């Protein structure tokens, strides 16, 4: 739960970049999933592997069922992606320091170079949002023309996950710096939030109270997933708006 403002929060708890997800308007249309895949050079894995839990989606939309026919109801769609925890359980368990906390951006980083593929981080992630490169998934030519030059193309044996589009964060910060100003709220957003037709996803600086995302986050109606574990996630969910 969101604590009252007077409680002094650690920088890990406040975070820097945050996201809110309005499950009431999320229609499960998968636009965010497609946008994420296109932005972040995510491999597709084919029918067999995707059916066996090896799909590489960095964001997935969960839904459950409630009740029995005819009073059956689909629970509000719940997009799950890396929650960019302030106290991430993935971070301490990596023996190689491949998944580390960014002090500058307050994000959980995955440093592909350092990854040796023990998969402990994914095992220890309570949100199960990490995707492992089980194989060298092929992109037949000329599909590789589409690859985003701002994002690396991962190879077999490394872990990957949602980065909050850190390449966009860097680009926006770089542009702002070259123009001698701060990054403005709404100047850029993540690929998923940019695509979302219902504007269910809002992204921005949660540590600045005037931003849209901070205002939504702090309106007191949201919940954070598995907050009882003390992971300090930076994605806030709103079941009923």
């Amino acid at each position, binding site marked *: 739960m969101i604590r009252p403002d007077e409680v002094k929060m650690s920088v890990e708890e406040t975070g820097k970049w945050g996201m809110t997800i309005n499950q009431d308007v999320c229609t499960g249309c998968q636009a965010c999933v497609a946008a994420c895949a296109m932005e972040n050079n995510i491999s597709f894995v084919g029918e067999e592997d995707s059916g066996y839990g090896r799909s590489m989606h960095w964001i997935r939309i969960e839904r459950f069922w409630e009740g029995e026919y005819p009073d059956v109801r689909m629970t509000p769609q719940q997009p799950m992606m890396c929650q960019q925890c302030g106290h991430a359980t993935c971070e301490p368990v990596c023996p190689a320091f491949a998944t580390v906390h*960014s*002090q500058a951006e307050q994000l959980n980083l995955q440093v*592909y170079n350092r990854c040796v593929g023990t998969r402990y981080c994914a095992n220890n992630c309570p949100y199960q949002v990490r995707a492992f490169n089980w194989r060298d998934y092929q992109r037949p030519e000329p599909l590789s023309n589409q690859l985003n*030059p701002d994002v*690396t193309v991962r190879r077999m044996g490394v872990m990957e996950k949602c*980065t909050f589009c*850190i390449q966009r964060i860097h680009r926006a910060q*770089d542009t702002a710096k070259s123009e001698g100003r701060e990054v403005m709220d709404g100047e850029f957003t993540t690929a998923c939030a940019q695509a979302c037709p219902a504007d269910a996803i809002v992204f921005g600086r949660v540590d600045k109270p005037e931003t849209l995302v901070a205002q939504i986050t702090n309106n007191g109606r949201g919940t954070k997933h598995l907050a009882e574990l003390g992971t300090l996630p930076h994605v806030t969910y709103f079941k009923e708006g």
Partner: protein
Amino acid sequence: MIQKFFNWLKQPLGLIASGIVFLALVSAVVYGIWRTQQAPEQPIQFPHKTHVNFGIQCLYCHPGAARGPAAGIPSQAKCWACHNQIVKTRDSALLAPLKDAVLSGKSLEWVPVAIVPDFVHFNHRPHIAAGKNCEECHGDMTKVTVAQNPQDMTMGWCLNCHIKNAGDDQEKLVKLTDCGTCHY
């Protein structure tokens, strides 16, 4: 037979032969490793020193460096725009590949020289903005023909400079040594 061979190996000639075999093996491996670090040849032996000594600025041909991540390689049209007007170079045999490429509409395939390891992003702009000169990383182009990479572009090399530049500014140090600044 094997016994005989072992016995033969033990005499001085055999020892020398074994030594030679061992050295050959080692040198083959060393040669192999060395080969991996050798770039293929450039399509044109581009004389950087000539151009730089004419007073052409780096950013004239590689303007991307001031604006964004990639410095870029000039389009063939840009090269030919000048060379077409210089009689000496228009028909020079050294520039024949360029002329062919321009006329045929094919691209010259340049070989990257300054490469960073995989899974790393380098952005020229902040470095130029921070007042770095091109030659601090790419070496003195007034002296080389084909560009060479004078640096071992490893993380240590990057970080040493980052730490030095951050100085006592703690915030800057955090930003400049954050894994996420380059690895994503």
